[in-house]
């Protein structure tokens, strides 16, 4: 394994971390449109909290996908063709939720505003769940052949472990979204988000425990890397505890950072466990490895130079755009 290959394995992890941190609250807020907001005016405010940002957040996914294609074409090809239907459903969810914000705002009748509100809500739920399910089933190992082609059955994708993983990620996004609402609104919505999280966090703890137990039985992570895997699982729980503490003590930033870091811990857990593989095959001889799935040294070097020169600039204006909109949105007046 060369240094450039290692750098890119880490960079893919960083990009997915950015994606889950940002799109995590984005998905969470999306789920809240029809469940948390009680009327049309509240829905407007909820959507407005992510209005200027959701599109930029989604670019993290596109960048992660593109970077994977550029640096590990074999990984990209195996993962994307192997998860054909799951990714298709993710795309459908992302499309529905993506257009829903713009379309809903421009509908004239309550019926259609309602329709697109639901499209945003269901799309967000499905996208978060499916991402969780995809990555969980991936680390459990998949039937991959000599050519690197995956031909899996329904139960390889959907099983107890992957469903628990999907639900855990969904709940994690949901609490992250609520923590974001607490930061971005004032009044009624802000208070309600707090009380919702008081209930949801115990659910999340239960989910994390079940997930950790299943992780032990369904993957080789604890066998191969007992120390680091345990440490990351502990970190995941600690961040969640910190976020919960932020809920109980009403420290909004602590909660938000805590739930964001919990999501990042999940990504780190996955990448740490994968290393030095990128795809785990049931027959370990066919697992895809970092060292034989990557692009040429020339391309990796080129991509490294370009990424390290462009990404810092991107981060500057990306963060600046959050600063510009760093203002709370008022909850609509009651009975509005």
């Amino acid at each position, binding site marked *: 394994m060369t240094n450039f290959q290692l750098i890119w394995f880490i960079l893919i992890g960083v990009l997915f971390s950015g994606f889950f941190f940002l799109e995590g609250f984005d998905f969470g807020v999306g789920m809240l449109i029809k469940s948390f907001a009680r009327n049309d005016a509240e829905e407007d405010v909820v959507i407005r909290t992510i209005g200027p940002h959701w599109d930029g957040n989604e670019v993290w996914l596109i960048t992660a996908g*593109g970077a994977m294609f550029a640096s590990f074409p074999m990984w990209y090809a195996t993962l994307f063709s192997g998860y054909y239907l799951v990714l298709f459903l993710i795309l459908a969810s992302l499309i529905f939720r993506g257009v829903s914000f713009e379309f809903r705002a421009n509908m004239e009748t309550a019926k259609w505003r309602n329709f697109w509100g639901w499209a945003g809500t269901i799309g967000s739920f499905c996208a978060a769940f499916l991402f969780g399910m995809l990555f969980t089933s991936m680390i459990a190992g998949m039937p991959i052949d000599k050519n690197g082609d995956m031909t899996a059955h329904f139960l390889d994708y959907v099983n107890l472990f992957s469903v628990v993983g999907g639900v855990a990620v969904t709940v994690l996004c949901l609490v992250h979204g609520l923590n974001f609402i607490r930061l971005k609104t004032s009044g009624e919505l802000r208070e309600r988000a707090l009380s919702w999280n008081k209930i949801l966090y115990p659910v999340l703890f239960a989910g994390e425990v079940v997930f950790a137990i299943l992780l032990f039985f369904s993957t080789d992570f604890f066998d191969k890397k007992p120390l680091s895997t345990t440490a990351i699982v502990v970190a995941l729980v600690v961040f969640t505890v910190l976020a919960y503490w932020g809920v109980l003590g009403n420290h909004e930033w602590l909660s938000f950072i805590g739930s964001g870091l919990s999501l990042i811990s999940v990504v780190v857990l996955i990448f740490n466990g994968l290393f030095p593989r990128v795809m785990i095959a049931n027959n370990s001889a066919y697992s895809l490895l970092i060292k034989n799935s990557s692009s040429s040294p020339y391309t990796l070097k080129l991509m490294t130079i370009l990424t390290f020169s462009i990404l810092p600039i991107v981060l500057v204006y990306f963060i600046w755009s959050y600063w510009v909109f760093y203002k709370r949105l*008022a909850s609509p007046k009651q009975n509005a």
Partner: protein
Amino acid sequence: MLNLGLDILGLARFQFGMTTVFHFFFVPFSIGLAFVVAVMETMYAIKGDQDYKRMAQFWGKMFLYSFAVGVVTGIIQEFQFGMNWSEYSRFMGDIFGAPLAIEALAAFFIESTFIGMWMFTWGRFNKWVHTLFIWLVMFGSSLSALWILAANSFMQNPLGYIINKQTGHVQMVSFSKVLGNPQLWNEFPHVIFGAFVTAAFVIAGCSAWRLLKRDHVTFYRKSLNIALIIGLIFSLGSIASGDLQTRYLINNHPMTFAAMEGLYKDSTNKGEWTAVGGFDTKNHKSTWSVDVPYVLNLLSYHKTTGTVKGMNKVNKELHAKYDKKFGNDMNYYVPTKTLFWGFRIMAGAGALFALLAVVGLIMNRKKSQAIMKQRWFLYILGLCLWLPFVVNTAGWFVTEFGRYPWVVYGLLTIADAVSPNVSVASLLTSNIIYFLMFAGMGLVMVVLCHRTLKAGPDATNIDGYAAGDKEIDPYSKGAFNHD
């Protein structure tokens, strides 16, 4: 399972065609609208004329709808290389992935960040700064077109690579050659100019319909003027860059060029150009045609003498060149009718756009009322608002069918590129659902644009999430209370 005569390859090709065509309705429209809106807002910044601000906001609404659909259908594109074309991804990843990743990093972030800034900050920034935002969006989206066309150009004309002996995959050896591909620099201006023309004629068409109803006459006449000026400049630009591209094809892709001109046999020195014709694609000959002498040579070489190779000859040459590697059962004939008619639609429409723009600008002079009296002309303009979408699709068809039977010219055939492990059932399902989703989104787009147009420029609220905004203005006092 029920055998419908469907195979993975056919379905994957259909899906690629369907998703790119639908995506490519919105891409040029968005790039073009960003440009036209940026011009309008710049005029406002310079002149301080409120009309230009209203224009930027009004047409900006359509831009936002189009952008939203363009973004979500764009994610499909990036994913589908891995999903449907895994063998292609393995073969091409070393070269194709890089532009795609840079596209996201360098272009999509600019686009998506600054569109949010532009959309939600009217009145919050100095007008020049706010204008800068829309120019950045326009810059970002044009940049993304550059990168994706860089990737596409490699497929049309591979440069700067070697074949890795162990893996058999292509491997990049010179990034500057990949980026300096002449194919790219012929294709890129043509696509961007086409995008500007698209937005210009949609705006011109919409304005024409409103002028027929004598609605907001000053506003729409001003819009029409800007649209037609941009339309004229860039339809001429499209024709010029199209000419460059065509002449590049004669040497580089003689098969494509011969098909575009419907030539099975070599042309004679008289340069007979087939204006329209019929083809027997099975027996490789033309059945009837209306020929005009010399035009072919004028188009191809800008002079009256010379000959152009026909498809039958090129086919033999290609067999001689590639039979060793790909076997002698390859069919090198490209889909002739598609290319022939696609090219005619594209070139014909280019000329029509230039003509309409000239006539329209003359009629729409400030002191003249001609445009309001010549209703037939407004009807033509109104109908032509659909034409750019047809033309863009035709252009895309000419380019993409033109590299048949290869996905990467001379290196990888389409049949070898497809994912072997995706089932017909999966592909059929995704095709049907995509189709329904696209139909739904297309319908909503049309309804929204129509409604925006009917509501008129006075109903403008660029903000998108307008409904309750007056009461919940986040920037009013009291909305700030942070802990």
